């Protein structure tokens, strides 16, 4: 089983469903520490056939550090499904990630805010 057709949505997950995929006989759930702007990058290359098509597609998108939202757009899959596939790849050490997400904007340092402001002015 591969790809989009293997994605389901959890019946009891509340308003925002946590999707999972069913790959090679196992049920996979997305890690809860991934979000739209979590950056991910592939650690190693893979051989054709080593992974199923859906995972390969994801891995091809993250050869350079890239946000999960961009991976989803590039792979043309819903965000939730991409998070599940990335969770598999993270667990199997194909991908590493970094969540730079503060809970609230007030947690962003004045220094970082100043850099963003300067960056916008230079556009």
């Amino acid at each position, binding site marked *: 089983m591969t790809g989009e057709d293997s994605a389901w949505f959890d019946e009891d997950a509340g308003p925002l469903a946590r999707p999972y995929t069913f790959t090679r006989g196992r049920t996979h759930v997305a890690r809860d520490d991934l979000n*739209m702007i979590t950056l991910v990058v592939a650690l190693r290359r893979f051989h054709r056939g080593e992974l199923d098509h859906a995972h390969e597609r994801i891995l091809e*998108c993250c050869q350079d550090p890239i*946000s999960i939202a961009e991976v989803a757009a590039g792979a043309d899959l819903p965000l939730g499904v991409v998070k599940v596939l990335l969770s598999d790849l993270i667990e199997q050490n194909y991908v590493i990630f970094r969540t730079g997400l503060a809970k609230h904007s007030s947690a962003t340092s004045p220094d*970082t805010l100043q850099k963003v*402001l300067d960056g916008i002015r230079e556009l």
Partner: protein
Amino acid sequence: MEFVSSDRTIRPAINATALKILIAGGFGVGKTTLVGSVSEIEPLRTEEQLTERSTGVDDITGVEQKRTTTVALDFGRITISHELILYLFGTPGQDRFWFMWDELAQGALGAIVLADTRRLASCFAAIDFFEERNVPFVVGVNCFDGSQMYTVDEVRGALDVDPFVPVLLCDVRRRESTKDVLTALLQHIMSLTGHAQRAAADN
């Protein structure tokens, strides 16, 4: 397959800080245009499926009924340096579903609410959403041709936003104008965090 990252000029570090600003407002108010005017990439699109738990139970099967709705977001990127990346997410225009999407607001640096003076009411829901979740925001009044019939003060009064929330006129088709709105948002956020820190220091 085309790689999404192939057009990137600065390769970000994996430990880069990624920040998110939301662009909200009613249907067709110019959210995607705003994102496109400053983004280094053509605005990309991503989708999420939100499940609505309905109150009713199906009489025949006894199964609780649910509806799944697909919500689409446009987004663009500004790579400030290899360790700092800003993403701009345009929220779905008239879709009521994004208001239950917690992940959207979580960790957002701030938001721009775009208003169209011909349909001011269409941005009330977005303003409520950001006020409730304490997401700092500014209001950009997008000036469609011939629609500048109100002053900033009139718009402010009609929207009933707090006096410290910046409200400014803009034309989001122009990069300079979008930069002005983003600059106002950043300055607003900095003054809010400055106040918070001074308040903490006083205690």
